[in-house]
């Protein structure tokens, strides 16, 4: 079971600043350990929903850093809106976490 994400969603005016940390090795398949190649293992797709509507999606490669960090901004959000983020990796593992938009400055 993959470790949970850390999601922060803060309102700035009516824009939700959404920042996410994901626990994932993002193995390139090029790294060697003890003389053996560590197989590629990396997140391929990410989707984010705000109150059930897709607001962000990404297809990514193994060149994204280990323990990935992403941030994006969604207009028309309000405090209490539900943010759900899902990632899927090349080994078929996935993880979904959620948070609510926090009122900010």
């Amino acid at each position, binding site marked *: 079971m993959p470790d949970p994400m850390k999601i922060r969603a803060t309102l700035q005016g009516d824009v939700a600043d959404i920042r996410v940390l994901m626990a994932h090795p993002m193995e390139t398949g090029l790294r060697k350990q003890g003389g053996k190649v560590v197989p590629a293992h990396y997140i391929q797709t990410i989707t984010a929903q705000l109150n059930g509507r897709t607001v*962000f999606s*990404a*297809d990514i490669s*193994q060149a994204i850093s*280990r323990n990935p960090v992403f941030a*994006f901004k969604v207009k028309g959000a309000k405090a209490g809106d539900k943010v759900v983020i899902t990632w899927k990796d090349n080994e078929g593992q996935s993880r979904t976490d959620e948070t609510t938009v926090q009122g900010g400055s």
Partner: protein
Amino acid sequence: MQMNRRTLLQAGAALGAALLVPMRALAAWNKAAFEAKSEADAMRALGMGSPAESKDIEIRAPEIAENGAVVPIEITSNIPGTTSISVFIEKNPFPYTGTFEFPSGTMPYVHLRAKLGETTPVRVVVAASGKFYTTAKEVKVTIGGCGG
């Protein structure tokens, strides 16, 4: 055989892109693009043709990266109608790094962190109203500490 398959893939990708640009370009994780060993091949697999140079794309990334394993990159598109931002790290073994999609209501902005194997241009291609625009920024990768 190889040629045919490749041509077919390209055609498929181009067709897909042409049909879906306003809605969702990311129909499926584009294996051909991600496995391409050059930026040009990857862009071809993504059906981007030759994007026009644009000054309306901002890339914020360090001139010299403290560590090539984690290079922060922030991209903002000021092109009206932006639907996606794609990133290519030219000198990486597989340059195509990803595409970020923005349905209407999401600002054309993304922060990501990427691995850079060596000093390289980071190229961004923006899709806006069915057209492609590009700009690039060079990031230097150096030896950091004691090297031992």
